[in-house]
Each structure stands twice: as structure tokens, then as C-alpha cells.
């Protein structure tokens, strides 16, 4: 990744809310956060509520001022409006102008991002199609349901074809169908080479789309890596075996490893590497034919809970 161009670069950023006159006291929402996002990546920032994810994003967009450190997008210091021309943003807890229709909002925001009417006349219909809002596009936004607002919100983040799209909790409060749609949109952006920065506390979403993940809690980064790196092998194996009597299995394997659990078409058990060989030998010796063995990984949620709990201790 070091070879890649850095789209977002955050170095040792801190944010203290509501400090006194001389910066004393106050609440430390970010505490020395550093991260890099390369071009074309789908980047996930994970963390429980209150971790400081939104705060970091607001600093990137110049919505909040940092108390220390350095943050850049496209190599330009954040806070410079020009740095935002190539960024699309879906805020968390957004309220879009209810006095506009969906189309009007897309036109206005497209213009504010420097796109002319000619471009927008072509872009907006295709975008509405993409987010599935063609039918309600001419209704006032104040009449929209939550799901519709989220869709038009995604559209306004993408209307000027930005190179970086920042989505803060894009699937929060969206039904499963909507979530799948969001995932498809992110995949589409990725295919076109757009960099995507997703904030989420909903782990399955991130697991399914992100290339790289940073986990943070209480203003600090805990871990960083690919999904595979963050979900260590758990030492648990699943055996698929030809149909046999369950009792036999328990007798053969029971004293090896721990947490034996029968499952349909086989069983799961916790084994060390040495025990794994022994286990295979025993099953074969017992005349049981093995159809498959898979090493189980922790899912992101388990890894996440483990990490956050460990940190809390």
C-alpha cells in the first residue's frame, strides 16, 4: 500500500471537545489517531458508539477543527474548501433541506461542487436510477421516508462523481434490502476506482465490502489490517465425515482437544496442530472416512468484541 497514492492521511490527530480557555479539561474524543487510505481502497473505520469515528470524519471535512496533529485529503490540508471539491459525504444523522425536491437538491449540491447544468442534466437521471429513487425524485424531501432519505443522501454524495466518498453509518436504520443496495453501490464505486471511506458500528456490513479496516475505541486506534489479518484463526476445526454413529465419534475424538460439538454431517472441535494430526489418525483408524476439514476463523464481530474487551480491561 505504500506504493499507492495516499488519499486520506491522518497523523497523530487529537480532538478535545469543550476544553476550557487554555485547552484544559474537556473531553478527549480523539487521542493520537493516525491512518492512511490509499487510492481505490474501500476503507472501514470500525468502533463502538462514541469511539470518535464521526469526529474524525468531521475533521477530514473541515466541519470540526482538530486540536492537534495533521490531517490531509488529496495532500491538501483539511479545512481548505478546495480540498472538498473531490469529496462526497453522507453525514450521520443528516437533515437534508426539506424545502427541496430530490432533484433540486442534487442540482444545487452538484452546482455547489462546481458542476455545470449541462453535466448535471446527464448525471442526475442515471444516479437516481442507481439509487432507485427515480419515482420520488420530484417530491419534496420532507415527505420522504427514512429509507428514501438515505438513498437520496447517497445520491448527493456521489452526484459530482467525487474521487473520495465518505459514508458515515450508511446502513444505520436501513432495512436488509436497503443494506444490500448500499453494498452494491459501494461495490460499484469500487469498480470505478473511487476511494470509499465507511464509518460503521455494524460489522457484517464492513466485513462484506471493505478491503482494509481500522478498529478504534475511545478515541484510539486498536488494530489495523485486512479483514483476514484482523480475524485470527481460532484453532477450531470443522470435520465433515461420512455418516456414522455419533457416539463413535465422541469416543474416538472426545479426549483430544476441547469443546467437542457434534454438527450435522460432522463435528467441530478445538485442536492444537499436534492434536489435529492425532485426530485424523484416530478417525481413519476408527474406519471413519473424512470428507473435509476446514479451519474456522473468528468472524469480525468476535474479533472486535475480544479486542474492545481486552482494551477495556
Amino acid at each position, binding site marked *: 500500500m505504500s506504493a499507492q497514492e495516499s488519499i486520506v492521511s491522518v497523523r497523530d490527530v487529537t480532538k478535545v471537545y469543550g476544553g476550557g480557555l487554555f485547552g484544559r479539561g474537556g473531553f478527549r474524543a480523539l487521542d493520537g489517531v493516525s491512518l492512511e487510505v490509499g487510492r481505490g481502497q474501500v476503507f472501514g473505520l470500525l468502533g463502538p458508539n462514541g469511539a470518535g469515528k464521526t469526529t474524525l470524519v468531521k475533521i477530514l471535512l473541515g*466541519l470540526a477543527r482538530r486540536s492537534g496533529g495533521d490531517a490531509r485529503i488529496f495532500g491538501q490540508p483539511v479545512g481548505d474548501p478546495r480540498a*472538498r471539491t473531490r469529496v462526497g459525504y453522507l453525514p450521520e444523522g*443528516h*437533515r437534508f*433541506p426539506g424545502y427541496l425536491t430530490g432533484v433540486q437538491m442534487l442540482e*444545487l449540491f452538484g*452546482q*455547489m461542487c*462546481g458542476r455545470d447544468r449541462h453535466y448535471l442534466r446527464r448525471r442526475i437521471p442515471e444516479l437516481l436510477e442507481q439509487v432507485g429513487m427515480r419515482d420520488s425524485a420530484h417530491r419534496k424531501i420532507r415527505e420522504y421516508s427514512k429509507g428514501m432519505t438515505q438513498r437520496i443522501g447517497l445520491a448527493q454524495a456521489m452526484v459530482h462523481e467525487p474521487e473520495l466518498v465518505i459514508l458515515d453509518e450508511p446502513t444505520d436504520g436501513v432495512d436488509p434490502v436497503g443494506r444490500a443496495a448500499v453494498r452494491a453501490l459501494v461495490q460499484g464505486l469500487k469498480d470505478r476506482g473511487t476511494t470509499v471511506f465507511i464509518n460503521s458500528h455494524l460489522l457484517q456490513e464492513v466485513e462484506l465490502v471493505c478491503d482494509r479496516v481500522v478498529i478504534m475505541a475511545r478515541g484510539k486506534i486498536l488494530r489495523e489490517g485486512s479483514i483476514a489479518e484482523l480475524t485470527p484463526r481460532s484453532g477450531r476445526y470443522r470435520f465433515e465425515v461420512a455418516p456414522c454413529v455419533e457416539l463413535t465419534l465422541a469416543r474416538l475424538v472426545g479426549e483430544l482437544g476441547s469443546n467437542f460439538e457434534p454438527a450435522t454431517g460432522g463435528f467441530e472441535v478445538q485442536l492444537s496442530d499436534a492434536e489435529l494430526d492425532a485426530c485424523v489418525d484416530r478417525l481413519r483408524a476408527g474406519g471413519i472416512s473424512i470428507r473435509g476439514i476446514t479451519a474456522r476463523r473468528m468472524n469480525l464481530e468476535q474479533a472486535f468484541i475480544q479486542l474492545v474487551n481486552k482494551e477495556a480491561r
Partner: protein
Amino acid sequence: MNRPTLRGLFLDALYQVLDNLGFRILFCLFLVPVLLSFVVSFRETSIAFFWCWEWDYAEFLRSATASSGLDAAARAEMLANVRESLLQGLVDVVIEWGADRFGLVFGIAAISFFVPQMLEKGAADVIFSKPVSRSSLFLSRYIGGLLFVGILSAFLVGGITLGLVTSSGWFDSGLLWSVLALMYGFAIFHAISCTIGVFTRNTIGAILLTLVFMPINCGLHLGWENLVTLEQAVAGREASAEEPQSGAFEFLKTGLTAYHVVAPKTGDAMRMARTWRRSLETQPEFQDSELGLVVAQAPREFRREPRSSFAREGLAWLAAHPDGAGEASWTLRSQALQDTGPRSALVKKQRKELGTDPVRSDISGRYADRFEWVEDRGGEKRLRRRWILQVGDRIVTLDYDAESTWARADERETAATAFLAGISIESEELRHMGAVSYERKFGWGGPWQFNAWFSLGTTLAFVAVVLALGLWKLRRIDF
């Protein structure tokens, strides 16, 4: 900032205003007088509604003055002016109340949501993450507000002007000036409301605080104007000039003066408009600011004698009689009460001399004793008339002297009535009100207290400081 961005900002403001309920109500309210000005036409002798129902001024007057016991002559005189005074009154109502008072308050109330609504939670994240600086957004909202109130008041005033011109054939430049005055007042209060909006980030709060500020500001300036008037009145009487002033009074005076210098002088907007308007209009024949006396026009056929003086022997208008037999004259004169003695004594003396009783009369709505007699001067019969009235501590006399048959001609009597009708004297109560006295001295030259340039400069400086304060705060908000 490039063109699409500006366009986007402008359209956003436009849509937001068009969607606003207060703004829509205001528009509908303004529509009423505009439509009325088109469908009601003030003709020479009658008012017509919808071009079919006519109502004679004479009939109108008869019903309005039926019980007042006015004589036929007075009624005829009123009738001559009824169209003009109706139209003038109507326009005054529109300017003073429609534009200067309600227009300003409603405009502020209707547009105060502009900045705070943009700053409310959730909405701010959306708009301030766009590639537009906070200062541009703030200033675009300020200018957008000005633009919309400008359009609205131009609609009101332009509509009424056009309506009056087309349906009644009547035009008054004061209407157009009032748009400028309204915009000036609005530019000041809108800046304050925008900045309050940044600090409160709440629509209702911004509206309320601005509406509270308006009368307080107005009251403090008025207080200062009264103070200055009072001081000058006191200084006029030398005796009391030496009296030491109490500490509380000095404190009040310093405070009010400091406030007056610093704070925006919105009331001066209408004054500036009026001075401009006056400078464009035809000047009256004569005016005396001491008495608040204005003579609109010279008597027909008469010319002012240039060497005559109002304060000394009297201001004279002369006309040569066609047959060369002497001259006719009107003489207007003012004397201090202490030189002439009380008015009643003056009237009594005159009565004794002439052997006739005076008639109750009035000039500019003030009580006046009118004497009329015929004098035999070298075989020529002269018609003499004299009005005596008191204005404050001065006695004003008006004399008419003309060859009798010449003067009695119908058209000369009518001209005399018109001349008298054109004389106006402000009431004392009004003249001793600070605001009026201040306005009389107010102009584009003179000492700083009454100087329009000073007023304009300090007010604009105030607006700039207020906007800068709002910007400073806005740049420090963490959304």
C-alpha cells in the same frame, strides 16, 4: 468561487425563501394594496371602483362633514384639495406604516430563519461539507436576504406606483425613496439577525432577539434626540445655562451619546430619503425653520419683494394694479410676544381702532382673528384684511391690501384662498419633540450630531463589525 457554485448558492436561498410560510404571508399581504391601487382610480371629481362604481368627492365630503357646520366656502376649498389629500394620505400610510414599520418588522421576522436553519444539527453537516467556505455561505445568506426583501418591497412600492400612475395618473417620488430607506433599515437589522443566528443556532431565538433589539435601539436614539433638543432649548435661555447638571444626568447623557455614536441609526434612513426627496422637489416659496412655517406658493399675480424681511418689517409680495393706480400687497410678519404684548390686547386695540369685530378664522388649522375693512386712501377704495395669530412666543400677522373692486373679482378671491391654504405651521408639541427637531437639523452638512454622512458612516461601520463578529464565531463552530 466559480459560476455554478454561485448559482447553487443563489438557488438554494431562493427555494428556501419561496418555501417559507412567513414570506408567503407577507407576499399575500403586499398583494392587497397593489391590486387596490389598480382597481381604485382617483379621478378629478370622483373615486371609481373597478372602473364602474363612481363616488363623487362632493358627495363624499357632504357625508363626511354633514354635522361639522362648515360653511359653503370652506367646503368648496376642501373639495378643491380632496383628491390630492386623499392620495397623499394613502401614500403616507403605505410609506410610513407599510414600509418603514410593518415592512421592516415583518421582513426581519420572515427572513430571520435564514442563517440559523442552515446551522441546525444535521443540516449544517450537509451544507458545510460542500466545497464552499463558511464565510461565503454566511455572506451569501446575508446578501440573499437583502435581495429578497428588496424584491418584495420593490414589488410593493413599484406595484402601487404603477397602479396609481395607470389608474389615477398620480406620481409621488417619495414612494420610490421609501424602498431605499426600507432596504437600508433592513440591511442593518438583517446583519444583526444573521449574527445572532450564528450565536443561537436557533430560528426562534434569532427572530425574538432581533425583534427585541429593534425597539430598544429606536428608543435609545429617540432618547438621545430628545436630550439634544432639551439641551438646546435650555441653552437658549441664558439664565439657566449656568446651573450645574447633576451627576446622574451627565451619566445618562454620556451613555446615550456613546450609544448614539456607535449603534446603527436606522431611523435616519427615512430622514435621508426625505432630504433627498425634498432636494428633488420644487422648493416652497418661503420657509422659516424657527417657527416651522412654510409658504407653499406666492399668491397668484404677486411677486416677492426681494428686500423685504420676515423677521423685521415683514415679507412682502406685491402686484401692480393694471390701471397703474398703486399696488396690491400681501405682508407676512413675525414679532416676539414680549415686543407686541399679549395677543388679546393686540386684538382689542385693533378692534377699537377699526370699530369692527374680528371673525374667527384659521391658518393651517390654528386659530386666527381676521379683520376686514375698507380704507379710503386718497379717493381710492382699498380692501384691507389682517390675520393675527400666535405661534409659541411669537405673533404672526398677515396683511392684505388691494384696490377694492380689483380684489373682489372672483378669480382673485379664489387665488387668495389658495395662497392661505398653502401656508402651514407646525404644531408646537411636534416641534418640541426630539425626533422632529432632530430631523429639522438633519442634513448632508453641519455638525456631526445632525450630519447624514456621519450617520451613514457609523451605521455601515456597525454593520461591518456585526457581520465580522458573526463570521468569526461561525468559523469557530464545531458542527
